C-alpha cells in the first residue's frame, strides 16, 4: 500500500476486504485481521467503514482496535522482531538477548529503526518455553536464541 493512497481509496478497499465476513457471527475480529493483513496496519480511514457495516459508532470500533496489542495504527518496519519477555524466557536469558537487540538497533520496545528496517516488539509467550529464549521474525518463530543467533537474524533483516 502506497502511503499516498487517499482515504477514499482505503475506504473503498476496506469495503471489499470486509464484505466476505458480513453474514458471520461476531465478524469484527476477522474483519480487522483481514484489514491489517492487507494494509499492514488498521488505517483510520477503515474505521468508519467497519463501523457502518456493523452498525457501531466509530468510537466503538476505535475502542476495539485500540484494545488489542496486535492491531497497529501505523505501518511497522520491514522486519518485525518480536522477543518474548515472559517468565520462561526470562529464566533462560531473555533479558540479555533483548538488551543486546535494543543496543544494537539503537531502539527500545515498540520503536522502529530510522531506516524503517526493523521494529522491535515485546511478546508474552509463543509457547516455545522449552526452547527458551524465543522470538518471532515476521511470521517465523525462532528459539534457543542467544546474542550470536540474534546478530545473524539482524544481519539478514538489514
Amino acid at each position: 500500500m502506497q502511503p499516498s493512497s487517499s482515504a477514499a481509496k482505503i475506504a473503498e478497499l476496506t469495503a471489499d476486504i470486509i464484505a466476505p465476513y458480513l453474514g458471520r457471527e461476531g465478524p469484527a475480529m476477522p474483519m480487522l485481521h483481514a484489514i491489517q493483513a492487507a494494509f499492514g496496519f488498521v488505517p483510520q480511514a477503515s474505521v468508519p467503514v467497519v463501523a457502518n457495516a456493523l452498525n457501531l459508532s466509530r468510537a466503538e470500533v476505535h475502542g476495539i482496535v485500540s484494545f488489542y496489542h496486535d492491531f497497529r495504527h501505523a505501518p511497522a518496519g520491514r522486519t518485525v522482531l518480536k522477543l518474548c519477555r515472559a517468565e520462561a524466557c526470562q529464566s533462560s536469558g531473555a533479558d540479555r538477548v533483548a538488551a543486546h537487540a535494543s543496543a544494537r538497533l539503537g531502539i527500545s520496545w515498540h520503536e522502529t529503526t530510522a531506516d524503517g528496517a526493523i521494529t522491535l516488539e515485546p511478546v508474552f509467550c509463543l509457547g516455545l518455553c522449552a526452547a527458551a529464549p524465543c522470538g518471532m521474525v515476521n511470521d517465523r518463530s525462532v528459539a534457543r536464541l542467544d546474542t550470536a543467533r540474534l546478530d545473524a537474524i539482524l544481519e539478514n533483516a538489514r
Partner: protein
Amino acid sequence: MTRLFVPRDALSVAVGADELAAALAQACPDATIIRNGSRGMAWLEPLLEVQTESGRIGYGPVEAADVPGLLAAGFLAGGAHPKRIGRPEEMPFLARQTRITFARCGITDPVSLSDYRAHGGLIGLTRALSMGGADIVDELVKSGLRGRGGAGFPTGIKWRTVMQAQAPQKYIVCNADEGDSGTFADRMVMEGDPFLLIEGMIIAGIAVGATQGYVYLRSEYPQAVTAMNQAIAAARQEAVLGAQVLGSAFAFDMEVRVGAGAYVCGEETSLLDSLEGKRGQVRAKPPLPALSGFLGRPTVVNNVLSLAAVPDILAGGAAAYQALGVGRSRGTMPVQLAGNIKHGGLFEVPFGITLGELVMEIGGGTASGRPVRAVQVGGPLGAYFPPALFDTIFDYEAFTARDGLIGHGGIVVFDDTVDMARMARFAMEFCAIESCGKCTPCRIGSTRGVEVLDRIIAGDTGQLGLLADLCETMKFGSLCALGGFTPYPVMSAVRHFPEDFAPRQHALAAE
C-alpha cells in the same frame, strides 16, 4: 519406500525443522517425508525419525548440516551415529509417561484423517453417536474430568447445565488462548493431533445439543491455526463435520477464530466478548456462560486439553479414566516442563506425582547446570515454589493448600541467578500491561504494585506491609483471575524468598 519423520511443531520449526526437511528432500529424493507432531522431548528437537524394520529410530537434535554425516552413517537403515537415540518410545522420558491425550502426538501425520482413524481416532465419537446426550454427560461426570484450563471445574457438570438450558442455538467454544508462560500443551495438541480436539468438540456438541463450535486460537500460534484449518477442511471433506456427522442425524460444524494478542482473552467471559467482536473485557458472573455465553446463548467454554480428553473417556469408558489420579484430581495431566530445565517438554502423567520428581528426576534440573532456586507453577498467575516444597504432589487441592495453583500445568524452572523481587515486580507489570481495565483493583492495583515494588527494590522495606495489603485488595476485589491471582506470584516470592526483598547493600557488597 523409506519413511522419514520431521516434526512440523512450532518449537521444532523454530529450531530448524523446515531447513532439515528441505535438506532431507534433496539428499533422499526417494524417501517420503512426513511432517509429524512433536514427541514432546524439546531438547531433542528437531527429532528426525526413520521407519526401519525394527521400528522407528530417532536422531536428535538434528540440523540440516548433519544430513550428509547421517547419510554416511547409514541412518536410513537406523545406522549408528552420535545423535542416534534409538526407539523414541524407549527413552525414559517417554517410557515413564501415561499418554492418553498425547497418545498419537508425534506418531501420526497430524492432518491425515486416515492416519487418525488407523490409530484409534473417532472411536469415542462413534460411541457417542449411539448414546443420548444425557448418557454422554453422565459418562463425563463419572470420569471425574475437571477443566484443564486452570479452574478445575468439573467438565460434566458444566455440560449438564448447557444440556438442560433451553435455546434454539447453543455453542461449543474451545478456549485455545493459551497465554500462560511455560505452557504449550494446547499448541502441541492443535499442531500434533488436531482431529482429537475436533472429535472432542463434536462429542460436546452432541451431548449438549450444540451445532456450532468455535476455536478461539491466539495469534501467537500461527502454525496451530494452519494445522487446525487443514484438519477442519479434511474433516468436512469426509463428513466428520457437517450436516450429518459420520452419516448420523447430528449436525456440527466449527471454525477457528484468531485472537489479537490480549492475554486476558484467556479468561472465558472476555474470550466470549472478543469472539463477539468487542473489546475483550471481563463480564460479571452471573449469568454463567453455560446459560448466557456467546451472543447470549448457552455455551460450553472448555480448554483444549479438557475437550481433547473427551474422546478417550468415551472410547475407553469413564471407569478407566477415573482409575487414574489421586483424590479429586482424576485422569492424567499433560505437564509442561519449561524455562531453565535440562529436559524440557511435554510429560503426561496421572495426578499424584511430586513437583520434585517432575523438576529434578524427569526434567534433570536446570539447563545451566546451576542449582534450582525457584519454580513457577501454573503460569504468570501461579505461585513460586522453593525446592523445600518439592514434596507437593501434582493435584488441584494439594497446590491450593500451599497457596499455589496448578493452572494449566506449566512448570517454569529458575536457577540461583534469579532475582525474586524482580520476578514479583514483573508479575505486577504484566498485570498492568494486560489488564482489561474493567475493575479497579486490577487496573490501578497492578500499577501501584509496580511502584511499591520499585520502592522495595530501592531499599524501602517498610513498604512490604503495603504490598501485602494491596495484594489482599487485588485478590478479593478483582473481577477475574488476572487481578485476583497476580498476588500469588508476588506474595509467594515474598514469603519463600524474603532475602531478595531485603535492602540491596549486602548483595552489592558481596559482589
